């Protein structure tokens, strides 16, 4: 009997291809949309998490000005000096390493390609603190730092845009006012959520101060990067640094600090909540698509109720049992919903793989969301395919035949 119902159901599907197509389409869109959105949302979350861990653990940033944001110090707020960095290293317990940073956006030219690149002048310890790994070449040495050697280490984005994939080691690029030899290429850290970290050129601090930018306030540094010792109390260290810097800046107790200290945990929290919001938003959009898909399925099923009720009447009149008719409708609904669901999953996989590349997030296959999306859409398809049939199969054949 099951085989018979299956044979009849397959015939019915073949006979009503438009209806079958629309049903499949509803399930297909719903499944594809929700899987794609949730998968990409989770990929983005993962990417942000990975980047935060790339920033380095126990990392603290000291910046001029108040408030959290990646913006240059504005006028009137004093920058730091190298002495500030030295003092923090000497006087604050719990500090493992400290790197003064001077940053500037400078024009960068190699042959006939020019672009503006964020350039960082710092010391060699900066690479450790920020967990940069060399892909090629070498980092700069203490000698480079002392002499302000015309050398630089470049990020992957700069490599890609200026060198189009060719090895950059040994090449000379013009940065700001001077020409520097590329001695090292850094491994990519990725970009999602944090801006493109690979869009960077790192030079010895003295090189940036003496060669690349103008003379004015040339010994200022714009940021101090600090890594804490394993197991240090981040809040205590931040409090100590704050106190020290307030003293050095002669701030009175009624004045606000004109600098700020963050640790990566705070940054992680800020980014984490943003990503969370984004994922929730995507899930909401996906939920709407699923709903729309569900309504599509419902419509096409309900529109055909009249025709199908008459069909049920005919089948009953020529001797079909109610249960046989129901089984046929169930098989039809399940078959169409499953075809739509499988196609939807396939499309979602393709979309996710493609889009993940495009927006630089990892492609993370989530079994759970695939199963949920499939089951929900299939349930809608089956429910609305089966429920009207259930009602019709209970009628007297003559009432089903006369259904208007």
């Amino acid at each position, binding site marked *: 009997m099951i085989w018979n119902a299956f044979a009849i159901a397959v015939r019915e599907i073949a*006979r009503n291809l438009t209806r079958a197509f629309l049903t499949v389409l509803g399930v297909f869109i719903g499944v594809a949309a929700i899987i794609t959105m949730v998968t990409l949302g989770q990929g983005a979350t993962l990417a942000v998490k990975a980047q935060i861990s790339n920033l380095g653990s126990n990392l603290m940033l000291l910046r001029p000005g108040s408030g959290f944001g990646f913006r240059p110090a504005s006028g009137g707020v004093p920058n730091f000096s190298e002495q500030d960095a030295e003092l923090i290293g000497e006087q604050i317990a719990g500090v493992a390493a400290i790197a003064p940073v001077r940053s500037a956006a400078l024009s960068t030219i190699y042959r006939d390609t020019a672009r503006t690149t964020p350039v960082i002048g710092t010391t060699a310890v900066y690479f450790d603190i920020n967990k940069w790994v060399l892909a090629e070449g070498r980092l700069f040495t203490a000698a480079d730092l002392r002499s302000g050697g015309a050398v630089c280490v470049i990020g992957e984005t700069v490599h890609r845009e200026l060198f189009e994939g060719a090895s950059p080691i040994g090449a000379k690029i013009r940065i700001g006012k001077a020409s520097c030899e590329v001695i090292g290429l850094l491994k990519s850290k990725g970009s999602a959520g944090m801006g493109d970290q690979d869009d960077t050129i790192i030079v010895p601090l003295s090189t940036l101060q003496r060669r690349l930018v103008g003379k004015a306030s040339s010994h200022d540094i714009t940021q101090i990067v600090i890594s804490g010792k394993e197991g240090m109390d981040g809040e205590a260290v931040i409090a100590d640094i704050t106190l020290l810097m307030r003293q050095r800046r002669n701030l009175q107790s009624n004045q606000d600090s004109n600098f700020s200290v963050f640790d990566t945990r705070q940054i992680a929290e800020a980014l984490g909540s943003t990503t969370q919001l984004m994922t929730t938003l995507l899930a909401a959009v996906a939920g709407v698509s699923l709903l729309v898909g569900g309504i599509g399925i419902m419509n096409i099923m309900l529109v055909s109720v009249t025709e199908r009720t008459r069909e049920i009447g005919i089948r*009953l009149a*020529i*001797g079909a049992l*109610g249960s046989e008719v129901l089984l046929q409708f169930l098989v039809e609904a399940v078959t169409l919903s499953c075809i739509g669901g499988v196609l939807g999953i396939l499309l979602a996989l393709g979309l996710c793989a493609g889009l993940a590349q495009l927006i630089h997030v990892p492609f993370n296959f989530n079994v759970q969301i695939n199963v949920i999306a499939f089951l929900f859409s299939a349930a809608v398809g089956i429910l609305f395919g089966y429920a009207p049939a259930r009602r019709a199969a209970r009628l007297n054949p003559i009432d089903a035949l006369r259904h208007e």
Partner: protein
Amino acid sequence: MSAPLPAALIDVRGLTKTFGVGDGAFQALKGIDLTINRGEFVAIIGPSGSGKSTLMNVLGCLDVATTGTYAYQGIAVESLTNDGRSLLRRFALGFIFQGFNLLARTSALDNVELPLLYRGLPRKERRTKALAALTSVGLPTKLGSTPGELSGGQQQRVAIARAIVTEPSTLFADEPTGNLDSVTTRDVMALLTRLNGDRGITVLVVTHNDEVAACARRTVLIRDGLIESDVRRA
């Protein structure tokens, strides 16, 4: 059981059928007593709203009576379940409707095969029998045509083929020629007469067309839910 088959194929006593409840209730059949024997050709006639179609639907097990008894070949139909009536229709009854009631977008051959599918016949046997039935109604060439591609007369022939393919003992026809022109009407009635004569199929026709009623050897006139006259021709 080796009890002899009762002489009466259809035997109803005190049959009533009420539609609706309360003030809106309408009694379509008000107590019908009727016996039909194997091999008869009966026309049920009467004005519109007299209850003739309702009687036919109850006799054909497409509808259930409100009160009264109905024995088909000795089987107490009023005590059957929905499935029981389905099986009775599957194995003993055939139907022809005014509106043909063929499955849309389904070829003539598939429509005729449908009852055999529910009987669980293998594909080859289904095909052979459906072809034979379509040939016997004079439509051996339109096998692949869907109802939309056939004329009314052709559709009704397909419907007749579908009704007789299971070799039913009784054929119920509700205004079978209601949607057909007079020439086609004569063809269809000739076909029913032949099925009755050659194969011994009992035929019940509901009609208000005198020409159709004239084909029958017995005419039952229904008026206001009661049998007014029951005339047998020699």
